[in-house]
C-alpha cells in the first residue's frame, strides 16, 4: 500500500500543529465558535448530538495492521471503547473531546493517517472497490489511480471551497462494488480496443434529497490525461455550481439542469484549454505510486481445497468469502453486523483483533467497505479456518454478507444532529427478525439500507429495500422504498406508499419477503423478482 514520502508526512505533521494552535486559541477565547467552526471541520471534527465526532480518513478504504491497531487504541484512549465504520470507508468516533483532538491527530499522523477533508465543501475521501488488488474480476488494481487522485485533491487550492462536498469513486471491475454511479464523479478503469488502460468518467450522481444516477460523460480518458480531465470536470462545477442554495449545490443538479450534453461540451472545452497548461503529473509519478501497490508475495502451487466439515465454517465460507485472483487464496469479509448489533460498530478489542489477523494472515492489509464491513483481502485458504475461529471467538463471524442481516444503517437520531428518526433500532429489529441462517439462506441476496434523514447517509435510495426515517408531527415514521441498486445495474428505489411505525416497517419487510419467495423464479434475487413483477403485488400484501 502507499507509503508517505517526506512531503506527505510533513504536510500532515504541519497540519496537526496548526490545528493544535487553533484549538488552544479557541479554548483561550481568542477565536469565537463562528471563527473556529470551519477550522475544526477542515480537520474532520463535527459537533454531533452528544459530543464532538471525529471522522478519520481511510483513503480508498485501505489500511495496514499498524493503522488498524491504532484505531482500536484511539477508541480506548480517547473515546468510549468503540469506533463506527461508515459508508465512506472511513471510521468515526462519537465521543471526542476538543482539547484531546490535536493529540489524536498527532497519533494518527505517526501512522500516516489524518482527518483532513473528511468534512467541508471539498473533495472528500476517495472511495474504491474494497476488493481492489485481490478481486478475480478486475482488469487492474484501481488503487494507484485513486491514490493519484487523492494526492491531486488533497489541499488543492482551487477545490477547497467548492459549492458543496464532492465525492469520487474509482473501480476497475464490471461488478461495481463502490456505488460508482452514485458519486459526484465515478471513474471506471477500462481497457480500450487497442488494449490500453484508461478511465471511463461518469459525473453528476449522488443520493441525498435529490438522488441521481451519474450519466457517462466520456468513454475513455488516457492515463496521461486523468488528472487534467478530472480538473476540467471540477472546474466547470466550481464555476457554475449553485452557491445560492445548498440544496441545489451538488454537481448532480448542475448536470441535470444544464443537461448531460451541455455539461460534457463545457468540460471538453475546459479540458482542451487545460491540455495547453502543464498540470498533468508526469507518468513517472503514477509509476512511483504504482510501485507501492505491487502484489504481495503470494505463494504459488497452493491447493484450493478447504475442509468444510464444520457446518458453521462452511456457512461462513459460502457467505463471507469471495474468489481471489490468486489460486490458494481467498478474500474474507468480516461482518460488523451481528444479529441485533449496531451496523458498523466495532469495539477496540475487535478492531485490534482484526489488525492482528491482517498482519498474520493477510499480508498486513485490511479494507473498510462502504457497506460498513472489514475485509481481509489476501487470506491463504489453508489459514482460513484458523482466521474464522479467531473471528468467531470475538463475535465477528456472522455469516450474513449481502443478506437481509447485512444492513447499512446511518447513525440516525441516536447520534446524528441532522437525523429525524432513529436508524439503528430498526436495523437491529430487522436483523433479529431475520436472524436465522436458514431464513437468510432462503431469501438470499437482499440489500437493505436505512437512513435516518433525507441526506441518505444510509444509502436508502440504493437498497433493494430502502428505509427512510422521517419526523411526522414529532413522531418517528419510516418510509419504505423498493428497487434500488448500487451495482453495475444502478437504479433508484421508489417509495411504495404511506410510512410505518418502527415495528410496522419490520412487519412490512417480512411481508415483502413472503411476496418475493412466493413469486421468485429459479435463482432470482429479490431485486430481480421486484423488477419483473413490479410494485403492485408488494403493495397489496403490505397495505392490504
Amino acid at each position, binding site marked *: 500500500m502507499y507509503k508517505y514520502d517526506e512531503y506527505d508526512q510533513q504536510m500532515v505533521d504541519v497540519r496537526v500543529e496548526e490545528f493544535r494552535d487553533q484549538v488552544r486559541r*479557541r*479554548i483561550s*477565547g481568542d477565536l469565537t*465558535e463562528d471563527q473556529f467552526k470551519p477550522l475544526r471541520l477542515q480537520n474532520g471534527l463535527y*459537533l454531533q*448530538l*452528544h*459530543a*464532538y465526532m471525529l471522522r478519520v480518513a481511510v483513503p480508498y478504504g485501505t489500511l495496514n495492521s499498524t493503522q488498524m491497531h491504532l484505531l482500536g487504541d484511539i477508541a480506548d484512549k480517547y473515546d*468510549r471503547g468503540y469506533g463506527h465504520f461508515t459508508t465512506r470507508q472511513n471510521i468515526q468516533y462519537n*465521543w*471526542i*473531546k*476538543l*482539547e484531546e483532538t490535536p493529540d489524536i491527530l498527532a497519533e494518527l499522523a505517526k501512522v500516516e493517517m489524518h482527518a483532513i477533508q473528511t468534512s467541508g465543501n471539498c473533495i472528500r475521501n476517495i472511495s474504491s472497490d474494497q476488493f481492489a488488488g485481490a478481486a478475480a474480476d478486475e482488469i487492474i488494481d484501481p488503487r494507484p489511480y485513486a491514490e493519484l487522485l487523492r494526492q491531486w485533491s488533497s489541499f488543492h487550492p482551487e477545490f477547497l471551497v467548492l459549492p458543496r462536498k464532492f465525492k469520487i469513486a474509482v473501480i476497475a471491475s464490471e461488478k461495481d462494488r463502490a456505488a460508482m454511479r452514485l458519486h459526484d464523479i465515478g471513474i471506471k478503469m477500462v481497457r480500450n480496443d487497442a488494449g490500453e488502460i484508461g478511465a471511463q468518467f461518469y459525473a453528476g450522481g449522488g443520493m441525498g434529497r435529490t438522488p441521481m444516477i451519474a450519466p457517462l460523460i466520456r468513454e475513455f480518458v488516457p492515463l496521461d490525461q486523468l488528472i487534467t480531465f478530472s480538473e476540467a470536470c471540477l472546474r466547470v462545477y466550481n464555476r457554475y455550481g449553485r452557491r445560492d442554495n445548498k440544496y441545489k449545490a451538488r454537481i448532480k443538479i448542475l448536470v441535470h439542469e444544464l443537461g448531460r450534453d451541455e455539461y460534457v461540451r463545457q468540460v471538453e472545452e475546459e479540458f482542451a484549454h487545460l491540455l495547453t497548461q502543464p498540470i498533468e503529473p508526469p507518468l513517472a509519478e503514477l509509476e512511483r505510486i504504482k510501485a507501492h501497490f505491487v502484489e504481495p508475495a503470494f505463494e504459488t502451487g497452493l491447493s484450493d481445497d478447504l475442509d468444510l466439515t464444520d457446518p458453521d465454517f462452511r456457512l461462513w465460507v459460502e457467505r463471507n468469502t469471495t474468489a481471489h485472483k490468486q489460486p490458494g487464496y481467498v478474500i474474507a469479509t468480516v461482518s460488523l453486523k451481528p444479529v441485533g448489533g*449496531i451496523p458498523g460498530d466495532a469495539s477496540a478489542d475487535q478492531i485490534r483483533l482484526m489488525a492482528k489477523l491482517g498482519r498474520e494472515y493477510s499480508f498486513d492489509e485490511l479494507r473498510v467497505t462502504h457497506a460498513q464491513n472489514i475485509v481481509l483481502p489476501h487470506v491463504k485458504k489453508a489459514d482460513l479456518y484458523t482466521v474464522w475461529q479467531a473471528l468467531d471467538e470475538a463475535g465477528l463471524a456472522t455469516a450474513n454478507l449481502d443478506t437481509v442481516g447485512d444492513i447499512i444503517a446511518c447513525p440516525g*437520531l*441516536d*447520534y446524528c444532529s441532522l*437525523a*429525524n428518526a*432513529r436508524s*439503528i*433500532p430498526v436495523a*437491529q429489529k430487522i436483523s433479529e427478525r431475520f436472524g436465522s441462517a436458514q431464513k437468510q439462506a432462503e431469501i438470499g441476496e437482499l440489500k437493505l439500507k436505512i437512513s435516518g434523514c433525507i441526506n441518505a447517509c444510509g444509502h436508502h435510495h440504493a437498497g433493494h429495500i430502502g428505509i427512510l426515517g422521517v419526523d411526522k408531527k*414529532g*413522531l*418517528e415514521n419510516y418510509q419504505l422504498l423498493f428497487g434500488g441498486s448500487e451495482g453495475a445495474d444502478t437504479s433508484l428505489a421508489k417509495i411504495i406508499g404511506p410510512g410505518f411505525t418502527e415495528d410496522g416497517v419490520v412487519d412490512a419487510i417480512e411481508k415483502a419477503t413472503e411476496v418475493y419467495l412466493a413469486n421468485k423464479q429459479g435463482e432470482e434475487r429479490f431485486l430481480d423478482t421486484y423488477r419483473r413483477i413490479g410494485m403492485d403485488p408488494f403493495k397489496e400484501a403490505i397495505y392490504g
Partner: protein
Amino acid sequence: MKILTGNDLKSGAVVWWTGVSWSLDVNDSADVGDHGAAIIAREEGVQNVFAAYVVDGEKTEEGVRPAHIKERIRAFGPTVRLDLTLKPSDPDALNWVI
C-alpha cells in the same frame, strides 16, 4: 417550560442551564421562559459553552423531560447503547430515554 441547552467547549458534553450555571444533568434545568436569547447572548461571551439553544420541556415526577425525542436522546444518551446513557446500570433506561 423552556429549557436552555448547549455543549461544553472542551469536552463537547451536553449541558443544561440551571439558572446560575451549566449542569450535565437535564434535571437541574431552570425554566428560562422568554429569557433564553438574552442568556445565550451573555453566556456566549464566557466561551465555556457554545451552540446553545432553547427547547421545550416539562417537569414530571421523574424530573425534567425535553418534549421532543431528539432532545431526550440528547439529554439522556443513545437508545442503542444503554451503557452510554446517563443511567447506565438501569435496565429500564430505554423506556426512560424514549
